[in-house]
Every structure is written in C-alpha cells, then in structure tokens.
C-alpha cells in the first residue's frame, strides 16, 4: 500500500494523500495515515519539524535549509511503503476514557437531539457512550479532536444558528462527527454533555490530553461527580 499522491503544501511542507479527499471518512485509510506517521516519527529524521496527520492525508514539515522537498520525498516514500498488514504491526495505542455528564445544564441539546433521532435521552446516551472512537486528527483549535466512529444513526445536522459560546469541555455531534470543544468558543454542534477534564493545557509537558490515533470512550458520570472528578494531571 502506498501513498497515492505527494504534493507541495508550502516551501517547507509536503502533503501526502493516502485516499480519497472527500467524505465519507475511511477508517482504514486513517489508520494507514497514523501508522505512517508513527514510522516517520520513529525514524528520527534530523530535518523533520512536524507531522500533521489528518483523515486521509499527512503533512510533513521540514527544515528547508537542511533538505529540499525533492530530497525529502525518497526517505518518506520508503517509510510509507513499509506498511505491513494491520495485524502484524498492531500497536496497542492508547485508549483514553473521558468522563462525561450528559444532559441537563451540561448538555443542553440532549433531549431535543434524542427526540429528533426517535430515541429516549437515556438510549442516546447509551449508544453515544457505547462506541469506541478514534482521534482521526486534531485541528481547528489547540487540542480539538476530530473523532471518527460515530454510529451513523446518531448523525445530526449542525444548529441553524450556532451558539456564540459553547462551554469548554462540551461533547457534541456535528454532522457525522462527534467531538469535544477544548476551550469556550462559538460553535454549531449539538451539545450532549460536558467533561470536567482539561483537553488542552499549554503549561503541561504533554499539553494535549488526546493525540492523533488515540482511541476514546465516553463514560457517563453523575452531575454531582463533575466537580469531584480528577482533572487530568
């Protein structure tokens, strides 16, 4: 399996495409992106400045004074082509459990969303929290995870009028994606609940709770436990 396309993204970056650039998201393609990123990182190339995995693409930022784009393509191609079947190189990866208080003041759209889907609120909570999601990519804002793996039956269109303020830690559904808002911001997703965990703290050694490629599961907790929950240390 090889990257289908390599193009210049900037004078100091290449963009590698692993699959189709339009929806739906293909989980196998995304897994290949993360495996390739892991191999490239492990190779410790001296000119590498950053690796940005996304749904079906991988950006490689390099030091243009140390190497030019043409010379960088070869070692990258070799690392990408070295993809063996998923079973053989199955990295356990991390599974991060995220406690969430669903509904009420913590998830203002839960009841309406459930009604729209023809479910009881409890059923919506059960189905949303039953799934194992993958951090397909992080972007839009520091620590903002794009999670793939949402049950297609739970897809919900964004709000016609976005909220001007979505509280930090809010868990929502936007279209066919689910995700979390690391920081208070405007937003149009349907809010199901909120986590007390800090998704992004730039003063920590590992600033982001989640990394691209991580697995994520939501664990419902009681509203009383919101304040008592261990904030991510």
């Amino acid at each position, binding site marked *: 399996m090889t990257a289908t396309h390599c*193009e*210049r*993204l*900037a*004078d*100091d*970056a290449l*963009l590698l495409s692993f699959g*189709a*650039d*339009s*929806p739906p*998201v293909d989980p196998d393609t995304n897994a290949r992106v993360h495996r390739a990123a892991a191999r490239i990182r492990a190779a410790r190339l001296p000119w590498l*400045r*950053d*690796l*940005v*995995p*996304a*749904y*079906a*693409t*991988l*950006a490689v*930022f390099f030091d*243009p004074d140390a190497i*030019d*784009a043409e010379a960088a393509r070869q070692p990258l191609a070799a690392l990408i082509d070295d993809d063996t079947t998923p079973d053989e190189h199955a990295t356990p990866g991390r599974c991060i459990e995220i406690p969430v208080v669903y509904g009420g003041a913590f998830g203002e759209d839960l009841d309406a969303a459930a009604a729209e889907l023809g479910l009881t609120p409890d059923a919506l909570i059960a189905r949303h929290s039953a799934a194992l999601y993958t951090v397909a*990519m*992080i*972007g*839009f*804002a*520091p*620590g*903002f995870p*794009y999670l793939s793996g949402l049950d297609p039956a739970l897809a919900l269109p964004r709000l016609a009028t976005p909220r001007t303020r979505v509280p930090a830690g809010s868990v929502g559904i936007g279209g066919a994606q689910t995700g979390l808002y690391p*920081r208070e911001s405007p937003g149009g997703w349907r809010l199901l609940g909120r986590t007390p965990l800090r998704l*992004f703290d*730039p*003063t920590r050694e590992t*600033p*982001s709770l989640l*990394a*691209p490629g991580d697995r994520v599961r939501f664990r419902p907790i009681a509203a009383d436990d919101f304040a008592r929950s261990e904030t991510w240390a």
Partner: protein
Amino acid sequence: MILLQVLAPGASTTVQDRGREGWRHLGVARGGALDPVQAALANRMVGNPADAAVLEITLRGPTLAFDAPLRIALCGARIDAAFIAADGTRHPVPCDRPVALPAGTLALGMIRRGLRAWLAIDGGIAVAPVLGSRSTDLRGGFGGLDGRALRAGDRVPVGDSAPPQVGPVPEAPGWWIALDPEPSDATRVRYVPSDHALALPLSRGAWRVDPRSDRQGLRCTGTPLACPPQDLLSAPVAPGTIQLPPDGRPIVLLADAQTVGGYPRLGHVIAADLHRLAQARAGDALRFEAVDAAAATKARLRRSAEVARLEWAIDLMSPEADIPCA
C-alpha cells in the same frame, strides 16, 4: 527587570518571537512575527539574539512609559515615533537603527505606508515562554502577554541588560539599515499553483485586500472565482496556503491560521513573499504571479543572502557612536 507601562495599546500590538515549531499535530499554529526577518534585524540592532521576543505593531503603535533608559530599534514599515521626556518635550525617534532612550515615554503613532512594524528592546520582552515560544496564540489564549493583545494598563516585562549611557534626549547613530525600505501599495506575490482547476485563473484576477484580513489570513475582494461546491475532508494547511472558500474570494493563510482546513487549495505563496502580505493594507491592490518550485527556492535563497548582507552591515556599523536625535 524593567516594566513598560502601556499608556495606550495601539490598534493591535502583540508579543511575538519566531513562533513555536512542532505542535501543528495538536492544532497549535506556529504563530510568531509575520515578518520574522524584520523582527530579527531589530533584535540584532539592539544586541538581542534573533529569537528574542519583540512587540509586533499593526497600523498604529502603543504608548509605553518606562523609568530606566532603554535601547530600542524599530524595523518594518516606517512608523511615527516620538520620545516624550520627563519635562514634556517631544523628540523624534528614527526607525531602522538602534536608539538609546532615556527614562520617559515612547509614543508610537501611525504607520502610513505598509502595515506592520516590530519594536525590539535590549533584553527582549520577558514574558514566560509557553510551548517553547513567547509568541501570542490568540486562538488558544496563551503565550505572549496572557494570550491577547496589549491593553492600556498592562505592564510588559523587559529582560535584564546593560542600560545605555544616554543624555537627556534620545541618541542614535547617523546610519540606518532597512530591508524592503519602500513598501508599495500594489502588492505582487508569487505562488506555486496546486493542480486545482482554478489555481492558474487566480493569477488573472485583479484582487484587493479585504479589511477583514488579520494575522490568521489575508482575504481578497474581487471578481469571485466560480467554483462548483466541493465537500472535502479537512486536511492540513500551512502559512502561505491559498484557500478558495465557497464565496469564490481567496484567502491566504498566515502565521496564526488554523492548522487544518476543508476548503479547496489553489497553491501556496512562496516563503520569500509572505512578508509582503504582512505589509498589505486594506484596499491595496494584490496580484498573484504563478511560479514553479525552483523559482521559489531561488527567491528564498536570494532573500536569505540579502538578509545576511544586512546583518553583516549592522554588525559592522554598531560600534559607531550615537548622536542626539534632532
């Protein structure tokens, strides 16, 4: 440690250095001075390392008061600058050279041609680094001075350094050194086109800079490029990426832009020309010129060589004695 009292913040003044590399995979932009070369030249003039933090000034500068002498330098677009002494007298402060200021007030006014200037102070702006940089991340709300632009009443720390020996009025050398001394009102930027169908038509458009432009992106007004709606997966972008949103008016992403995007990509502005976008004012004419990757590399190396010559000149001239500013 010296504290600068912000009496007036200016239109948009932020602490910037060279930015934070290596965090884009977590959604953190590189940020940093929109023209890191000008910031580095200003730093060199005052004897700072190239990556010391500076104040990036947009359109109208701040008024800063300080109770100890300072060595400063202003590079980039020419900015009206005056020193107000304790007795109330005003003295002009020149750009493009180190200036020794006695204790007093530095009043930075309008930039009339171009848009941005960088103020370096001997010792550097001494805010705490976050994720390896002192640059301000406005989206994340961290870095620089509390992750935001300067406000009246702020106190900005400056690192320790030997105070300049200076009399009652500002003193500066007779020489000045400037890269890009004459910003024009018609900006031409070279770009490497992508293989999108509208990548080359971009160069035929007569664009103007939209007033909604900022450190995240330069937006264009003009005859929209008609693009059939495309539903694309979000993919990584970079400073210089030229996006085509549904309204058909291109956006060139700059240092503070989001790290991923879902709009079609028409190509990227070459690194050697990004600084021109830092000086493009609302309403300015803007043209895109398609070039290939080899031309981009050549331009980058040529600019590096120009910068190296100016750095050498600064080092050569620096020991010359200061004279009082007129």
